[in-house]
């Protein structure tokens, strides 16, 4: 079978990646250092009002990017603090 250079490198990286991945997954399974109280979802919250401003025009257009998400996407990372307003 004919495999090109990139694919060979990828296959060769599988061994070290497997070792590191297994170590990391087991370490987390035993030590649970990534766990904490999911207060965002486990607390009783009542939204009284939710509104926002939808801009009428785009700020910019992006052409031909290979990234499937916005750079610095933090919409799901609720605990990441950003600049104060």
């Amino acid at each position, binding site marked *: 079978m004919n495999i090109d250079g990139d694919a*060979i490198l990828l*296959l*060769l990286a*599988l*061994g*070290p990646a*497997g*070792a*590191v991945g*297994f*170590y990391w997954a*087991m*370490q987390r*399974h*035993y*030590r*649970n*250092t990534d*766990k*904490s*109280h999911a*207060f*965002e979802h*486990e*607390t*009783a*919250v*009542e*939204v*009284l*009002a*939710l*509104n*926002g*401003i939808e*801009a009428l025009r*785009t*700020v*910019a*257009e*992006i052409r*031909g*990017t*290979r*990234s499937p*998400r*916005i*750079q*610095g*996407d*933090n*919409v*799901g990372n*609720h*605990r990441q*603090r*950003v*600049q*104060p*307003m």
Partner: protein
Amino acid sequence: MASKPNPGPTGLGSPQDMPRAPGQHPMDPLDPSTLPEPIRDELLATDPAAIETASKELRDGLNHCPKCGSTEVRHRPGPRGLICLYCRHEWTATRVEEAFGLGEGIANLQGTQIASGARDIAADAVGLLSFKCSGCGAEVVVNTETAMTARCHWCRHVLGVNEQIDNGAVPDAVLPFHIRKDDAVARISQFVNKRRLFALEAFKDEFSPENVVGVYLPYMVVDARGSADAAGLGEIETRRYTRGQDKNKQTYFDADVWRVQRHVDFTVDDLPLESSAKRGNLDTRTNTHNVINTILPFDTKNAVKWNASYLVGYTSEKRDRDVQHLMPRMREQMLSIARAQMQPSVRRYDRGVRWERERMDLKGTRWVAMYLPVWLYAYHHPGSGGGLRHYIAVNGRTGETMGSVPVQQWKLILAALTIGTVVEALALWFIAR
């Protein structure tokens, strides 16, 4: 004869009252509605420490059975709560939600309301308290750092610390244990059995889950009302296409960038925060307190009025953090909650949103100090810098279990290297084929 009051200096440059506005009556009180909103809110806000939760009937330190008067009162897991060991009479303490209206009016909270058990700890507070037994008059000492009850060594009366002393040891409410010890032991055994292969040998050898200890840990349970704003950029995909041939095919995206802003007004009911500096430190490099944090939340709606009888047979840890210490953490958690609430409203930005600025405006908070029940199993792993204490914690109400099991590093590294080698060999075989 009374002398005339000195009218004071009246010359140029001397202090004078402000002249009245035209038409203003000299005795007009300050009308809050004419003041700017922030000042008005502050003036109208409820004074701190507005909720008095102390039990006057228990102030003598003796928890009598309401039927026979005995002090042999114990907590009994179940709906009734307390039992007299002398006459077997069972009764229950009042739920604080109903007794003090703690579940109501969150949408109208103003300012900082602090229940009497959550008041600031006095700077000169001590943990060791001496009580005069009202049964026989003897002096009995209770170390409130770890216990809230003691037996009088002369007359065998059980004394409990019921009065809200200013050392932070007596909270407003207590949530009694519901999970029994044998249940907690079974849950801890099950948790460890799933993590035996790479566990530290010494940990496995010394593992004895029956040594689990029931501890009442101090928390502040907070109701809050706030507003949050966030602003950033969102992207919507407009086109997706591939370039290149066969193996070099790659996906490319076109997208429009939009400015996004959201504002949310919301309330939070019963957010628990650790009110012990030690337990509130969740740095996983130096401790394993995050596993105790993970077993939150508790059904704090069922917490009952403080009664030291619930703590007989259990240990307790004293609160050492005041409202002001916990406020930054509370504010941050409120902001995270607000961001979570905003997420569904920005789904149309299918390439995600990058929030760049945010703001949290706390309108009102209500703080209640509680003891919450936790079954704790501890193992000290010796090492550099004093080693690490690993905990396995069971929520004393829901049974949720989380823990940290020390790892036999050489074993895990060997297994990882073996797996890596096998995968690498398979990859080499595939390339050479």
